């Protein structure tokens, strides 16, 4: 086991970025205000001073063109990390992401590879309103040719960023901006979490709560509440949405016979439905009840302080729903 230290999620990602940039000169950063300004969330703080304008490239507010340039650079020897400042803005790069980056390896029969990372800050919170709060990771997960990761802890953020940068294809890296100040143990030195590996974050017997990103923490808090009611909940974090570690998820569900899937994005046509269906296909005979889906409310994320907290499920609601499932009340 490597030694660890306590660090924030933000610092853990930064550590992966600077570590990979030191290892490999082809790793470059592109985005708005990521240079001397250090990023709007201070998520690239210090990299400009360390690596210079040649590698930490401030782009104009031209997401589509700048990302297209990143794709071309990736095809010709660079490993760009492209920042989409707010997750809502991923819509601005969708053509380049879907019609170029995702397909080039396939269309060219691997004559060209597109080793790039799209770094996307998502999440509800801070009253930023309908165009600065969405979590559109399901859009990327729908497209063949993209890998999609969504780390929930500082250690996973560091390890998955390193894995994403080293991957020879496009990886979309979703980080919840409300986790940036979360502090936890982070392995020192070189640390890689393989893409496509889920992790059981808490062992349990009675029910599997499969949760993504920030919702993992909601699930862990709910598991604490459930323990007081003598319900033992297992919490699994897929960590990667594509490829999905189906084996780990299914093994848990076969053990507990009940599952709830929790994700911060929209529920309609979303991540929760895909995971619920996958688990059901593989573990139908072991299930004692239908798999429950809980997502964000299917509305534009409202600005008002009274409404914004209603968008995502909290631990109390999750614990209530989980207890009802376990007791056969739903």
């Amino acid at each position: 086991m490597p030694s660890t230290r306590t660090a924030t999620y933000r610092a853990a990602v930064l550590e992966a970025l600077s570590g990979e940039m030191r290892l490999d000169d082809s790793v470059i950063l592109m985005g708005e205000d990521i240079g001397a300004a250090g990023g709007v969330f201070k998520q690239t703080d210090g990299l400009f001073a360390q690596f210079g304008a040649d590698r930490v490239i401030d782009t104009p507010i031209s997401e589509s063109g700048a990302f297209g340039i990143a794709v071309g650079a990736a095809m010709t020897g660079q490993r760009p990390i492209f920042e989409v400042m707010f997750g809502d803005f991923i819509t601005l790069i969708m053509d380049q992401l879907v019609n170029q980056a995702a397909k080039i390896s396939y269309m060219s029969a691997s004559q060209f590879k597109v080793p790039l990372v799209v770094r996307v800050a998502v999440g509800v919170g801070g009253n930023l309103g309908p165009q600065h709060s969405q979590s559109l990771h399901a859009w990327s997960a729908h497209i063949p040719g993209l890998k999609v990761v969504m780390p929930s802890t500082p250690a996973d953020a560091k390890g998955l960023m390193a894995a994403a940068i080293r991957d020879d294809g496009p990886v979309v890296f979703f980080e919840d901006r409300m986790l940036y100040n979360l502090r936890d143990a982070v392995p020192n030195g070189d640390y890689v979490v393989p893409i496509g590996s889920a992790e059981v974050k808490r062992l349990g017997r009675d029910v599997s709560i499969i949760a993504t990103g920030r919702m993992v923490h909601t699930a862990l808090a709910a598991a604490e509440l459930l323990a007081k009611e003598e319900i033992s909940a297992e919490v699994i974090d897929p960590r990667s949405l594509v490829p999905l570690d189906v084996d780990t998820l299914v093994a848990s569900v076969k053990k507990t016979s009940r599952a709830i899937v929790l994700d911060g994005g929209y529920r309609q046509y979303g991540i929760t439905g895909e995971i619920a269906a996958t688990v059901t296909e593989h573990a139908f005979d072991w299930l004692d009840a239908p798999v429950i889906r809980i997502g964000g409310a299917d509305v534009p994320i409202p600005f008002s302080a009274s409404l914004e907290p209603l968008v995502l499920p909290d631990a109390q609601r999750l614990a209530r729903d989980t207890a009802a499932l376990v007791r056969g009340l739903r």
Partner: protein
Amino acid sequence: MSSSLPMPTASAQPLPSAEEALRLYRSMQLIRTFEDQVRNLSSGGVIPGLVHLCAGQEAVAVGVCDLLGVDDMIASNHRGHGHCLAKGADVARMMAEIMGRRTGYGLGRGGTLHIFDAAHGNLGTTGIVGGGIPLAAGAALSAKRNGRQQVAVAFFGDGALNQGLLFEVMNMAAIWRLPVLFVCENNGFGEFTAIEDVTAGPNPIARGLAFGIPSETVDGMDVLAVRAAAQRALERARDGGGPTFLICNTYRYGGHHVGDKQEYKDDADAKAWRQKDPIERLGRRLRESGFTTDEMIAALKLDIDKEVRAAIDLAKAAPLPTADDLEAHLHA
């Protein structure tokens, strides 16, 4: 409707050496023959789907690519057979891709709109109008970083002049002084619509000038004029002078795709453009200067004809991709 494009005039360009001039001629004739054959194969149902041919526009691809090294990159568009061939693509492998055969550049899974040729610095033809432009600029960013004086070229049609992506990329190419050429092949029509009907401003060259990019309108039916303009642009790019914008006025002999009835075209206009045919024009110069004879040109055409027919035979005999190829190369 009638096109109000300026008609090109007789070339004032000096002829290069006999070897170079004949190379240009051969390259243009190869594209013409290739496109003629693709049209026949498409009409005959041998090539499935839609193909977009570049007959008439050969001088642009050849005039630019003739000066590029194998390390220099191009990004093509949907009318890209000429760019691929001029950059050195293997005729048989290209034909196989267009016919959907496993021996093609993408195992036959991309087709005419997705021909990639890494060995010759070709970032691909593309089905999205303007989609190749940022890829070329990205290759130029790599070139700038590696310091090997490589240059990248984006080929696009006049249709892409109204894509916002072009202006975003031009802006970044200018501020970062990227070694990239923006080469617009203005054939007068975006799909079925005349450029005048959808393009504001007195002259689209202003769209490059607005970013401080040296910009030039070129007779796109004169391979020597294109080559001379490309030469200036490439020297500037290799010297660190940044991007250049070229608008090459040319004409698409065929429709938007094979099967397009072209009712939007003016017959007199089409006839006038054909009188400026880039291959005929260079052929005349070559004969007048004694670089070649009618017999030599006939022999050359026959030779090219054989090469393209051999490529077709190879492609027809090649296997189709199988179910095993369905998911291959999805992830690098």
